[in-house]
């Protein structure tokens, strides 16, 4: 089992540690709902150092990446971040990733922890031209500072004006209380916030500096439990649930990150066909009508026939409702449609509703 460099800190803060994709990570400190609400109303600090980082360098780096992804990298400027999917030829998803453009010949790719090995192999197997692909995960540690107070807190530690840093932009080589790092206005909570990349050996000091700066803003450490309920309310996909090798980005409703007319890329033909014919199944939001909570993997039925499954489901701490995301037969994915969810051998009614459940509050 791998540990991040903040493992001892999490334990001393009283965190409950869990195995997440082979990593011992903090599930919660004070409690998932409390941490969730802190991020929505003030701020929370997450250790997400388990995420994988892959550096792609070389004259052909841009072209090489363009062939692997569904989004269009050609318009990405230096210091911009791109969210995209990598697909298999059949349109299934290899991973959902962030691409940081350092310059024309150098890109930092941030991948899901559990997919790092797979992504590396996938990239390596398609490598051509003057390109180097290197796993730099161990060099980087990553903290996510999220919530409406995130900017106030981080501003105390840096000289650059953070209000000028727009959504999905980043600044490299920033001096953060004496620690050099990269700051991006990104996150996975539906709130405004930042992700801060520093070299692994300085992450412990950075954690302390941010927690100290955040005291006056009631900053709390937040765990993966709150990270999951926050991203769920904002309907941000989680690989392994809303996305997988068997689920295409179009089925997951991520059409705006799929640029079919940008030129050739792996999976394009399959995705063009899905786009032309319409997808057979589609990710939809569900609100429970009957009392109960739908969970990942539960079957969804209509007239006693299986029409899909729940990808994520939980109590929404912000909306105080039991909600779910489900991959449904497209004919049943219309807003307002009533479906049944099989919960412990009982059929409970749920209604298709609009997503995201929680309207994201990004600073664009």
């Amino acid at each position, binding site marked *: 089992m791998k540990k991040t460099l903040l493992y001892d800190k999490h334990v001393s803060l009283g965190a*409950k540690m869990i195995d997440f994709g082979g990593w011992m990570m903090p*599930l*919660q400190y004070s*409690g*998932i*709902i*409390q941490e969730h609400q802190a991020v929505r109303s003030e701020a929370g600090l997450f250790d997400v150092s388990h995420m994988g980082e892959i550096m792609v360098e070389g004259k052909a780096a841009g072209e090489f990446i363009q062939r692997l992804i569904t989004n269009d990298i050609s318009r990405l400027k230096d210091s911009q971040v791109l969210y995209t999917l990598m697909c298999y030829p059949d349109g299934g998803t290899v991973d959902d990733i962030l691409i940081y453009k350092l310059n024309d010949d150098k890109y930092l790719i941030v991948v899901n922890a559990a997919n790092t090995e797979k992504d590396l192999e996938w990239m390596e197997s398609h490598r051509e031209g003057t390109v180097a692909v290197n796993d730099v995960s161990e060099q980087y540690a990553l903290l996510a500072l999220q919530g409406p107070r995130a900017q106030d807190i981080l501003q105390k530690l840096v000289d650059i004006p953070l209000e000028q840093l727009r959504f999905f932009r980043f600044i490299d080589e920033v001096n953060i209380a004496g620690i050099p790092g990269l700051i991006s206005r990104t996150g996975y909570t539906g709130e405004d916030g930042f992700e801060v990349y520093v070299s692994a050996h300085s992450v412990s000091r950075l954690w302390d500096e941010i927690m100290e700066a955040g005291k006056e803003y009631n900053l709390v450490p937040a765990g993966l*439990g709150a990270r999951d*309920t926050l991203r769920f309310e904002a309907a941000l996909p989680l690989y392994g649930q809303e996305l997988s090798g068997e689920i295409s980005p179009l089925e997951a409703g991520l059409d705006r990150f799929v640029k079919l007319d940008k030129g050739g890329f792996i999976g394009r033909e399959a995705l063009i066909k899905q786009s032309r014919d319409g997808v057979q199944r589609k990710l939809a939001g569900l609100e429970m009508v009957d*009392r*109960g*909570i739908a*969970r990942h993997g539960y079957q969804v039925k209509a007239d006693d026939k299986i029409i899909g499954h729940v990808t994520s489901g*939980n*109590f929404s*701490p912000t909306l105080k409702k*039991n909600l779910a995301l489900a991959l449904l037969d497209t004919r049943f994915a219309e807003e307002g449609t009533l479906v049944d969810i099989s919960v*412990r051998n009982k059929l409970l009614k749920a209604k298709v509703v609009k997503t995201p459940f929680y309207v994201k509050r990004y600073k664009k």
Partner: protein
Amino acid sequence: MKVVDGLKYSKDHEWVKVDGNKATVGITDYAQDSLGDIVFVDLPEPGSDVNAGDAPAVVESVKAASDIYSPVSGTIIEVNAELEVSPELINEDPYKNWIMVIEMKDPGELDSLMDTGEYEEYCKGEA
């Protein structure tokens, strides 16, 4: 972790308060703490029969759903409907906020449960 004297405890972390042939069942402090924020309680129908080891109730936290096993056999004569509206009461005081009352068929089944001291030791082994 809090335990209360005078109760019986199961290996599944339920507590039982015995009053004649009536057994009031709830979950322990250890159970509520490991579940985390409780957001839903599914209660059985009063009047239904249970066998020891059945799972007539379910408690769900943000993390997961967890079956509540009946430590004894008998008839469920009362459920704590307040928990349907305020499931978080279990987190606040798991020993006050009981889940169900069972009229026992065989009070001898209580002998297989632990007393307070035994349960404390048992929890140390679980950690």
